[in-house]
């Protein structure tokens, strides 16, 4: 565009051509904008449609749920109350919160120092140790499942949530990996200054690095919490025989067949299981997105 203006001598006709070209470019740009956004909106509608359909279903009466109707004739928020009377939802919630909270706290206690040593301290074998972290992160849990399951059987802890909680006291590979990536982004100078002042390494970590790594720690904790909230493999493996220790995932998976055959209540229960995660996400969106971005660091 600018080259055209430069070569064409100034004049009424030249300016006329130029404006027309300008207008065309502008129109094309506007068309591109409209096209991109039309596609964007269409894709967004597809992504949101499942949410809309299940919300609509969750408000239908049980009679209407048997039909193929998409829109409720009358709205029944009572379905959400009924979910709690059909299935022990409070028990599931309590178990899930116990699992997720303890696992997250234990993970932080054990994984922060390990990640710190892997990123901020100099020692021989550090790279080897990091490779071990990567290998543990990549190892499917099924590979080591038999001996670990046998171990928990001997400790008489199968049927409880402890086999999923206690290992976090000894570090979680994915969390260590994530925390290390965060710690590496903090400039070395702050820690060095504290060391010159005679701080012990523990104090350097707790007083200097951890406050600066707060967003990273928050993201790691949130990932762990959500992992536990969503976990199905662990609960079905260890607690499927003991409904008193079922989590929301497990309760929800059996909801439709054990407590209800109609879709309206099942969808109400489904929404109840999604809701806490979605709420936390909206409250802490920024921390979350930053965290996910770091999980995809260049390999």
């Amino acid at each position, binding site marked *: 565009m600018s080259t055209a203006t430069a070569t064409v001598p100034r004049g009424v006709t030249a300016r006329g051509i130029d404006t027309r070209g300008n207008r065309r470019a502008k129109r094309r740009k506007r068309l591109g904008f409209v096209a991109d*956004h039309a596609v*964007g909106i269409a*894709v*967004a509608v597809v*992504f*949101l449609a*499942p949410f809309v*359909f299940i919300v609509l*279903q969750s408000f239908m009466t049980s009679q209407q749920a048997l039909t*193929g109707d998409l829109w409720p004739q009358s709205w029944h928020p009572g379905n959400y109350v009924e979910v709690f009377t059909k299935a022990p939802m409070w028990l599931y919630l309590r178990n899930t919160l116990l699992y997720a909270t303890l696992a997250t706290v234990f993970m932080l206690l054990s994984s922060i*120092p*390990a990640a710190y*040593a892997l990123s901020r*301290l100099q*020692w021989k074998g550090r*790279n080897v140790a990091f490779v*071990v972290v990567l290998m*543990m992160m*990549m*190892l*499917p*849990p*099924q*590979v080591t*499942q*038999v*001996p*670990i*399951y*046998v171990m928990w*059987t001997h400790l008489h802890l199968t049927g409880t949530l402890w086999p999923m909680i206690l290992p976090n006291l*000894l*570090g979680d590979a994915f969390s260590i990996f994530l925390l290390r990536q965060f710690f590496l982004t903090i400039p070395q100078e702050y820690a060095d200054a504290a060391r010159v002042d005679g701080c*012990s*390494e*523990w104090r350097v970590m707790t007083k200097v690095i951890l406050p600066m790594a707060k967003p990273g720690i928050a993201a790691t904790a949130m990932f762990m919490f*959500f992992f536990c909230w969503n976990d*199905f493999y662990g609960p*079905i493996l260890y607690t*499927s025989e003991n409904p008193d220790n079922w989590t929301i*995932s*497990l309760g*929800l*998976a*059996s909801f439709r*067949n054990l407590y209800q*055959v109609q*879709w309206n209540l*099942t*969808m109400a229960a*489904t*929404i109840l299981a*999604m809701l806490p*995660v979605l709420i936390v*996400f909206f409250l802490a969106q920024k921390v979350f*997105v930053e965290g996910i*971005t770091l999980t*995809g660091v*260049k*390999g």
Partner: protein
Amino acid sequence: MTIAIETRSVGPTRPALRAKRRRQRLTVLAFLTPWLLGVAIFFVYPLIDTIYLSFTRYDLLSPPKWTGLTNYRFMFTKDPQVVQAAYNTLWLVAILVPARMLFGLAVATLVTRLKSGLGLFRTVFYLPALVPPVAGVLAFVFLFNPATGPVNQILGALGLPQPLWFNDPTLSKPSLVMLGLWGVGDLMIIFLASLLDVPKEQYEAAALDGVNPWQRFRYVTLPNISPVLMFAAITGVIAALQYFTEAVVAASVASGQATTGGGNSALLGYPEGSTLTYAQWLYVMGFKNYYLGYASALAVVMFVVSLGVTLILLRRARSLVYGAEGTR
């Protein structure tokens, strides 16, 4: 190291230095102790024990009995269900992983082109990735249920055929792929970040050379984002190898049986075994039927496959190990 100490001999004396270094080593050890115990108890020991148990017959009640290669022989010659399970899992590796990556890249590219509302679109596209897997499967089995599901209602209204989706052995896995595509948001966020990281100057230089959009993607975008694509591909394959929750819940809900994980072997991998995955077969054999020796053999094969995939990653991950600057 020693040279460094000697040249700096103006500083503290040698014994003092040695004491300091010993203290440093103790500090490192103190920071690492819980994790080192974890490596021993939850990684090294069970890995070795799994290999040992894979050569035994073991049911938890009596001690493991050495049977040599029996488990492996059974697996490779006499177990039709492991063939089906391995086929389904490899199908997911071959279809689900590339489909999710292509779709994730497409959505991320779309988001970069949206001049207004980028944040809003990003949130909308990410949202389904947050949905707990069990809730997501339930939602999809409802949406696609043949009789009353909204998808078939809409298809019917448009005069199109109404497939059985999760109840049709040829469509059950594609239905799971659609579920995976709906939850593509995690990949999208990672790809988006790396797309936005591509230096603007490279695009400008390409524009001056007059390249077409495909060349622009092939020679500017792709080299810049390929490390991230590689990482996503490998973690995707590892996740697909252990695909479990969605398959188990979809089969149980679509079949209408309250068997969480396959107590009823007739309905395993409903419909017609089309959703039986390798991880589920391992779970059923080991922890429902207590053939723990056989489950260990299944685990060893899984280990070999996932190790191969991980080693590719580790070779690629040099930059990750040796400093953040990265020498690709």
